[in-house]
């Protein structure tokens, strides 16, 4: 082991103890030690969910076909980051990790926890079968790719057409003016209009959609460096959001709603419009699913986009540990497993049985249909909607806008200038 690695490990060990002693300790379960004849996976895909059940079945089939044992340890998504870093310090890194490539995990590449999979994407023939653009969320500024993309999707606006019809609205709003009319009609009918999850990351995500209505893809620069207060177009987007807040377009006490609260309110038919990711397509009740149309966020006059906008999302994939990449024998096992997962049979199970959106081209997957109507809608969603700039790719690591979004949504009358000043401070910290 190099002196730097030794120093890092010693420091990490006492540091972990100190941090745990002076703050709340995170989940410290590590992955199982990697053995030469087996593959270890640390997964956020929970057994009982479609993704976790898919992985369990795939692992069983793979072991039966090849005789290679795969040891899957499941951890809650919110604990995965801490678990991986603790496992790394303990020298127990799993070979593969199922996770999405957020700014918070990008340092794993720089610090040698996970491997740049660029050569494997080409050598193993995966680049050839992926959909255009699905690698983008896995790409870093210095040209590395953080993992094998497996899931893809979108983060659109969901409209309950039954509730809209009850309020006398027959079509999905495509302009902000139409949205305001719909919201007023819904309120008059006793239905909450638009759920803004102001309490957590869901509100942060939705904010970025509003913020780029007038900036277009220039928002990427603000995501990276801040500068709301100096950008009139960004201010216009925030001002519009404030107007809609004060105009009661959003659910009452929106600042107190978390993303899951909005999901529940939408699923129970208490709110007509919400902004959810495609990962939740299969989580709704049948009646609400049948009544739902997914589309983009309505545009105001003078918007930088031509059609309503929605986020493309990278979704989960498989990260390869640097240890496994450096071990020829282990890499060979991993290659067999990756080949197995990207084979048409498994991709068909991912789409047809688990109702997930694949990162692979439809022609490769073969003839398979989604049973979920929302997934069917999603397949053609970009025909009538534009793709927005997703913040996960650009926001400076460590900047968490959620508390400020909570404040803005929960403070009637708060101005765009006040909010912009508070946001810009986050980038200076």
């Amino acid at each position, binding site marked *: 082991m190099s002196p730097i690695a030794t120093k890092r490990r010693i420091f990490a060990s006492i540091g972990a103890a100190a941090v745990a002693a002076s703050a709340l300790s995170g989940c410290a379960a590590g992955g199982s030690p990697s053995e030469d004849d087996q593959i270890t996976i640390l997964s956020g895909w929970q057994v009982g969910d479609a993704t976790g059940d898919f992985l369990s079945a795939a692992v069983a089939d793979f072991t039966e076909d090849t005789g290679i044992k795969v040891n899957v340890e499941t951890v809650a998504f919110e604990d995965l980051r801490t678990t991986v870093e603790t496992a790394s310090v303990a020298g127990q890194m799993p070979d593969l990790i199922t996770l999405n490539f957020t700014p918070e995990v990008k340092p794993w590449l720089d610090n040698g926890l996970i491997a740049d999979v660029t050569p494997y994407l080409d050598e193993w023939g995966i680049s050839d079968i992926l959909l255009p653009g699905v690698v983008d969320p896995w790409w870093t500024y210095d040209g590395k790719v953080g993992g094998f993309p497996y899931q893809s999707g979108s983060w659109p606006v969901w409209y309950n057409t039954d509730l809209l019809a009850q309020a006398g609205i027959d079509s999905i709003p495509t302009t902000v003016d139409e949205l305001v009319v719909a919201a007023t009609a819904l309120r008059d009918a006793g239905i909450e209009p638009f759920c803004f999850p*102001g309490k957590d990351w869901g509100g942060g995500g939705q904010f970025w959609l509003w913020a780029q209505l007038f900036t277009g893809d220039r928002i990427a620069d603000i995501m990276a460096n801040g500068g709301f207060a100096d950008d009139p177009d960004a201010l216009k987007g925030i001002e519009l959001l404030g107007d809609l807040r004060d105009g009661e377009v959003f659910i009452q006490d929106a600042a107190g709603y978390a993303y899951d609260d909005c999901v529940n309110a939408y699923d129970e038919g208490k709110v007509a419009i919400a902004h959810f990711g495609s990962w939740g397509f299969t989580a709704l009740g049948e009646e609400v699913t049948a009544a739902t149309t997914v589309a983009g966020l309505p545009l105001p006059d003078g918007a930088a986009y031509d059609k309503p906008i929605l986020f493309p999302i990278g979704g989960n994939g498989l990260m390869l540990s640097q240890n496994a990449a450096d071990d020829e024998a282990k890499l060979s096992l991993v290659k067999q497993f990756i080949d197995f997962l990207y084979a048409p049979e498994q991709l068909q199970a991912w789409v047809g049985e688990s109702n997930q959106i694949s990162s692979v081209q439809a022609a490769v997957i073969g003839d398979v249909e989604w049973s979920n109507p929302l997934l069917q809608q999603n397949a053609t969603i970009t025909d009538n909607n534009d793709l927005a700039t997703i913040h996960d790719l650009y926001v400076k690591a460590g900047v968490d806008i959620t508390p400020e979004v909570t404040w803005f949504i929960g403070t009637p009358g708060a101005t765009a200038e006040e909010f912009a000043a508070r946001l810009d401070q986050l980038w200076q910290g």
Partner: protein
Amino acid sequence: MSTETKAPKTAPPRAGSLRRSNRVLAFFTIPSLLWYLIFTIGPLIAMFLISFTDWTSIIATPEFIGFENFAEMFNDPRVGTAIVNTAIQLVATVPIQVVGGFMLGYFLSLKFRGHRFFRVVLFIPALISVAQLGTIFTVVFGPAGLINSLLTAVGLEEWTRAWLANESTAMLCIILVGIWSGLGFNSILFAARLSAIDGDVYAAAELDGANHWQRMWRIAFPISIDFFGVVLMLQFLWTLFGSAALILVMTAGGPGQATSTLSWLVYRFAFTGAPSIGYSQAIGVLLFILGSIGLLIIRRAFRQRY
């Protein structure tokens, strides 16, 4: 006839044998001393060492940067806000928890009819984990929670709000939950101490015309002042160091910085966003110093004076 018995005389131990005996006893304390050094003093020293480093996460290599973290800390408005919030939380929470707990404990110590039932009721919050506590009160203060439902039911709908998401009410909610969870526990502690006071003392005071208030503060309080100081010290330290857990579950420091305390910042910078463990530990050092000063003041102010 005298029935006096004489106690057998024993020779005092010789100094040499006493020293040998002490050395043997000291030898047996080595394992616990080692344990204490490794797991208590070790992390404390590590906290100070790490506070002088730029260390972005436990997977990165730390770099020694001297006092830079401390210089940044004193110019960081987030730390300033957190100091103010911490002071508000301490001033609003600790006196009510301790003084209220003492008063409740006094009445429990009188062993009135049904006091056992009230002891159980008052102790229940201590049986609820912080995670559960936070979850329960997140729902209670939620937009469709108990508070808003009650206000709506009594016709005060215009008073409803997202209590935890409102800058003017979020810290109040954290303080109320802290008081709720600590008051009953303290009362049980005080009741245990005050039960040891001889009932004749109260009876004598009653004959002299002292009412409950006078007996509580002129008799029970001076007798148990050292214990009062211990409970005050513990509550001060728990609130100062432990507020992060409740804040994590209920508000994550928001809205804005409304519920961001020093304890929360230690967690926030160590574990969320792009971690800065060195900076987190520098704030930890500040907390340690504030805690030590508070502890010394409380010990000095609540010494037994007879």
